[in-house]
């Protein structure tokens, strides 16, 4: 019975061992879906300076999107800066949740709990309604820097809550973890609702602090204040820029982790937890780390939320939001940082796109009506996407090594050389045992029969290569 590991595809384990599992062949037959991957390969092959040349303007462009006022892109019924600010926060959340779900493979349905804890930490520390308020005149945190001072506290507390939630529950697996985390998310919301003396309960906490920067005569409360509503450079844009800063920082950090022992451990755990542990991966510790890191990023997003909206109330942290966050991750392509950011953008932007729009490309539409059906369309889109593109919009395999780029580049180069030559000889599928093993130029070291060098495997790969170059 030890052997009864359920496979996703019934066919995968019935097949004789000498063949690759059937289910996998099926996916291999699908040559499409590599847009993201091809993009990554292209990107990896670029020299460093070129990467900077492309990357920096792209980030700059993203930052300028809300003030460029691009005709169709800009939302009508809602402020585009505000929408982008929300996008920034959800993108952060997607990055954090992606660590937990996409990379470590831990299904977390209660991620909104961390978002809530981050928001409430800032609110409890800086809202005048809170009994523990530390902000404002004569208080410990003062007025100007209260939000910034509360931010590290929020990160610390959410990390801690990740630890508290994770240490007992991460022994559970799969679906049990899902329901326990869902329960956790609900418990956090209900605590916020029930502990009214601390959290204001259903009345919420008002007047949360925000960074008071750029104070001018017109803007007595600075550019981040909700009062900065006029013009293109409104508070939403400022909050979006602030979110972007945090996004870039988290991408750097998460990227560093991904290309290290930690990221490899996460993926190994996701792929096969038992095998990972037997290969010397301290699985529990790294799962806990994934939770803590995911939680702290959620905490940052929560703190941003509290600062921007200046008001927190439990209803904003319900299960539906957890589910939406998860959808952002899956939609964009879990495991892939840029994919999940795209997912977040879609989740936030599309409903707002229709809101208040009366015509699109000259065709009159009732945008509000469409927007009110958004969950219906959203549900349908999810179902269709899962059927036809379950890997998400831009799936990319993560890069798990800090170095070794040259290997991948070399492999890519050789593919270009091999592809045209092997093109005609498309019979053999990769993966059949009959195919000779590739041994590199090393010759004698590998005592393997057969296996001509370098160009030999052309037969094995030709099919795919051909399809790829098409």
């Amino acid at each position, binding site marked *: 019975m030890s052997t009864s590991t359920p496979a996703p*595809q019934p066919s995968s384990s019935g097949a004789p061992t000498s063949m690759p599992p059937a289910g996998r062949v099926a996916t291999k037959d699908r040559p499409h879906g590599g847009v993201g991957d091809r993009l990554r390969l292209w990107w990896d092959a670029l020299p460093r300076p070129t990467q900077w040349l492309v990357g920096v303007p792209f980030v700059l462009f993203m930052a300028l999107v809300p003030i460029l006022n691009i005709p169709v892109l800009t939302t009508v019924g809602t402020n585009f800066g505000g929408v982008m600010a929300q996008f920034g926060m959800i993108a952060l959340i997607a990055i954090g949740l992606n660590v937990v779900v996409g990379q470590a*493979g831990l*299904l977390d349905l209660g991620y909104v709990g961390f978002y809530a804890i981050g928001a409430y930490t800032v609110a409890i520390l800086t809202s005048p309604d809170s009994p523990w308020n530390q902000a404002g005149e004569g208080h410990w945190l003062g007025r100007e820097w209260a939000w910034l001072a509360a931010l590290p506290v929020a990160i610390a507390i959410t990390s801690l809550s990740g630890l508290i939630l994770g240490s007992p529950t991460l022994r559970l697996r799969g679906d049990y973890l899902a329901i326990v985390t869902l329960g956790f998310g609900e418990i956090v919301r209900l605590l916020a609702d029930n502990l009214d003396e601390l959290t204001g309960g259903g009345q919420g906490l008002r007047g949360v602090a925000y960074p008071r920067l750029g104070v001018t005569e017109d803007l007595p409360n600075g550019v981040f204040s909700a009062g900065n509503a006029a013009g293109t450079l409104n508070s939403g844009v400022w909050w979006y820029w602030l979110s972007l800063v945090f996004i870039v920082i988290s991408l750097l950090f998460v990227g560093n982790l991904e290309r290290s022992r930690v990221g490899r451990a996460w993926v190994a755990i996701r792929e096969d937890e*038992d095998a990972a542990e037997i*290969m010397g991966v301290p699985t529990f510790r790294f799962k806990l780390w994934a939770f803590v890191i995911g939680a702290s990023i959620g905490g940052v997003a929560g703190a941003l939320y509290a600062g921007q909206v200046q008001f927190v109330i439990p209803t904003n942290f319900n299960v539906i939001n957890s589910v939406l966050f998860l959808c952002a991750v899956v939609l964009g392509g879990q495991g892939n940082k840029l994919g999940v950011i795209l997912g977040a953008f879609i989740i936030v932007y599309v409903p707002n796109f229709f809101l208040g729009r009366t015509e699109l490309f000259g065709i009159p539409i009732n945008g509000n009506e469409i927007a009110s059906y958004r969950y219906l369309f959203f549900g349908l889109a999810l179902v269709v996407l899962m059927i036809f593109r379950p890997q998400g919009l831009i799936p990319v395999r993560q890069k798990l090594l800090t170095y070794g780029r040259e290997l991948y580049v070399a492999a890519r180069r050789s593919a270009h050389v091999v592809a045209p030559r092997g093109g005609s000889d498309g019979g053999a599928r990769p993966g059949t045992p009959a195919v000779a093993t590739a041994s590199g130029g090393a010759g004698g070291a590998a005592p393997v029969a057969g296996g001509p060098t370098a160009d030999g495997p052309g037969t094995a*790969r030709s099919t795919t290569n051909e399809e790829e170059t098409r």
Partner: protein
Amino acid sequence: MSTHDPGGIGAGGEHGDEHLAASGRADSSRADLYMPGAVLEEPAIVDVAEVRPELANPDLVDAMVAPDRTVRAKVGEPLLQMENVTVQFGGLVALDDVTFEIRRGEILGLIGPNGAGKTTAFNAMTGVYRPTKGQVVFDGTPVGKLKRYRITQRGIARTFQNIRLFNEMTALENVVVGSDARHRTSVPGALFRTPRHRREERDAIDRAMALLEFVGVGGRATEKARNLSYGDQRRLEIARALATEPKLLCLDEPAAGFNPAEKEALMDLIRHIRDDGYTVLLIEHDMRLVRGVTDRIVVLEFGRVIADGTPDEVTNDPKVIAAYLGVPDEELAAAEGGTGADAPAAPTTEGGSGDASA
């Protein structure tokens, strides 16, 4: 959909081992989280000679692969001792008072008919099961209640009867996961890219490439594990296990599904591994392969050791002959190696073992 998957960690479908049943099931659903559609048809071959010219020298490869750690046991001395190990599942005695030892520097064969307890013995060594009685002593200290990853870090590495690679990782990454067992960088180090982290990463890649060359899949380093041919997957598993720099390498039916030529190549590889300084435990059904490569053989039947000696002694032992009576090697190997015969057998034993789930 709990498909019966022949040979899990507990492998072989030999015993109902309940505690893994539950975890194994949930576990695979975790593995499923990865989207299979996200196929990366990554370009194929790395010309190793070009990228890593130093690896063209086989001696250098051998030197890089050779284990670099202190083993207390001297060559020829016992490295691992099974001391009166009994493993019970409910009422079923899978291992009954088993005692044998593995000596440093040898290739030990562990054989026995289907259901004899080979894989259980294997699992008891690698910490998957805790012995009900007796103990496993490794390199002078009992394995005791160590966590599984600790045992690996102490120096026992294994491969799996049914291949369990990290399918979505490249061959190179798979091997680096193995070498991570010897690394100490954790989250803070990786987050801020400390010098130690950088050093470890560089070393890991160098060593992993050497290992891949060593087992003969260097050219496929950047290929996803799932896209490798079956034979390459087997070799990759060995490379991954070697990457943990084990004192003892345990191979669980590494030749299953191989044709004679491939088996021959595998035998060479196993000898080469031993010659490079590793101690090897080999579970195998193919008597010819075992006889050809091992220095010593332990035979299990019904959870007991029935013979222990050189290949010649063992193959002439009447008890062993009785155990394999009338069953030619080839057939036996086929029955064990292929899954067809295995699959229906497992549920029966499972049912018999009761359903204590904890």
